């Protein structure tokens, strides 16, 4: 989820670059197919949605797609990429509607399996800080369509790094699993590969029996100003229930904040997950930020802010989901109501027929 801080090429250039990248990836699929009949087929997945949001009385209509491509190459290498393409239609006072289009490459990475406990990632990757950036920026995975207020903490403005990362599992058994990630990113002002010079990493412990995960993240911006970012996260999903609790705390040099959200799919109230009632999922998110000193670059609100969101999601058959939510944001700049709805579809298709 990049911001507009980086210099971008003109729209025609970006379109040509995007199409070229996609064409190269498709060509690689073809080369890979002919190279090995037993090769796992590449897949195209991701989410496509139509979102509306009314914030303080202003409504935006946003058709959005986040396609993901995964291309296995042999047993130890794969290439993955995800793009975000959206248009934002909004009402211009007294002059009908206007819109802008936003396109970016979220990540384009090569994953090299370096052993039982390590994978080397090279290219552009999602910054591993907290949980939201890597796990929940795909619109199919989101219970609320808005990013948390503290999303900017540790994600180095663009949400992506350009360089290398080592990640893996230290050990895993039936009682605990420990995993890690560490990265270094160079500075890049390229429109599709915008990144800040930075380094960081995270470690987390997951306890399968209780469904609890605790993790810590650290990031250091190495640009003109060196700054540290710290984060903690706690997730809890009790076994054999439809309940989930997710939370994060993040601290930047001049601000800090937290969010937590819960959702409960009503599958246990009778009929299972595919019943009319079991497809319902009430969701709730609370978040708060605290400003210690002015800072235009950390991405957090300029003033202390609280926000509560209540939502109801409905899981339709055939990979379609409906989201609705109401939120109220409180800050010294004024309180606002936020209404959101969205219709999201998940696609998952192979690029050719498997020989398995």
């Amino acid at each position: 989820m990049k911001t507009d801080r980086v210099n971008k090429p003109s729209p025609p250039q970006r379109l040509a670059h995007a199409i070229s990248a996609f064409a190269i990836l498709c060509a690689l699929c073809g080369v890979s197919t002919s190279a090995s009949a037993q090769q796992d087929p590449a897949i195209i997945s991701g989410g496509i949605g139509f979102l509306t949001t009314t914030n303080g009385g202003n409504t935006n209509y946003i058709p959005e797609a986040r396609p993901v491509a995964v291309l296995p190459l042999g047993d130890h290498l794969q290439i993955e990429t995800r793009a975000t393409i959206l248009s934002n239609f909004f009402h211009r006072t007294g002059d009908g509607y206007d819109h802008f289009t936003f396109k970016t490459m979220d990540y384009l990475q090569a994953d090299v399996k370096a052993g039982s406990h390590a994978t080397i990632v090279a290219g552009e990757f999602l910054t591993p800080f907290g949980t939201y950036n890597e796990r929940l920026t795909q619109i199919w995975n989101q219970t609320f369509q808005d990013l948390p207020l503290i999303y900017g903490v540790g994600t180095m403005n663009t949400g992506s790094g350009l360089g290398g990362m080592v990640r893996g599992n230290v050990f895993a058994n039936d009682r605990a699993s420990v995993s890690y990630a560490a990265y270094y990113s160079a500075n890049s002002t390229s429109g599709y590969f915008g990144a800040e010079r930075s380094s960081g990493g995270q470690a987390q412990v997951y306890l399968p029996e209780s469904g609890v995960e605790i993790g810590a993240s650290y990031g250091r911006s190495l640009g003109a100003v060196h700054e540290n970012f710290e984060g903690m996260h706690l997730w809890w999903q009790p076994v054999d229930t439809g309940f989930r609790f997710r939370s994060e705390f993040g601290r930047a040099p001049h601000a800090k904040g937290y969010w937590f959200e819960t959702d409960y799919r009503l599958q246990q109230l009778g009929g299972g997950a595919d019943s009319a009632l079991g497809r319902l999922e009430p969701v709730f998110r609370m978040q708060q930020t605290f400003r210690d000193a002015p800072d235009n670059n950390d991405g957090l609100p300029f003033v202390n802010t609280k926000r509560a969101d209540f939502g109801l999601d409905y899981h339709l058959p055939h990979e379609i989901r409906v989201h609705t939510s109401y939120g109220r944001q409180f800050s010294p700049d004024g309180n606002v109501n936020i209404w959101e709805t969205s219709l999201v579809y998940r696609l998952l298709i192979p690029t050719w027929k498997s020989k398995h």
Partner: protein
Amino acid sequence: MKSLEIITLGLAVSISALAAASSMPSAQSDSQSQAQSTSKLSRSSHPATPDRGQRVFQQNCARCHSAPENLGPSVSGAVARHMRVRANLSDADFRALLHFLNP
């Protein structure tokens, strides 16, 4: 610049059409495998039939998203490999997940 855009657009459309055409024959087999995977998921979600692959799926993949409806042999390999990196799966968990998705 304009000719470059037209060439790349034509190239992308051609390759996309080829990719779509090559995936069409698998539509029927995918619908069969979808039925198999659907029954597999509903069967394996029963707590009386614990399975390591199912546990791996529930503990790693299902914490962020539900199971895809159209899982089949054509997609399970790439899906499991994606999750191996994204969820930092161990080798044993990766193999169990792969077996669960494509027994």
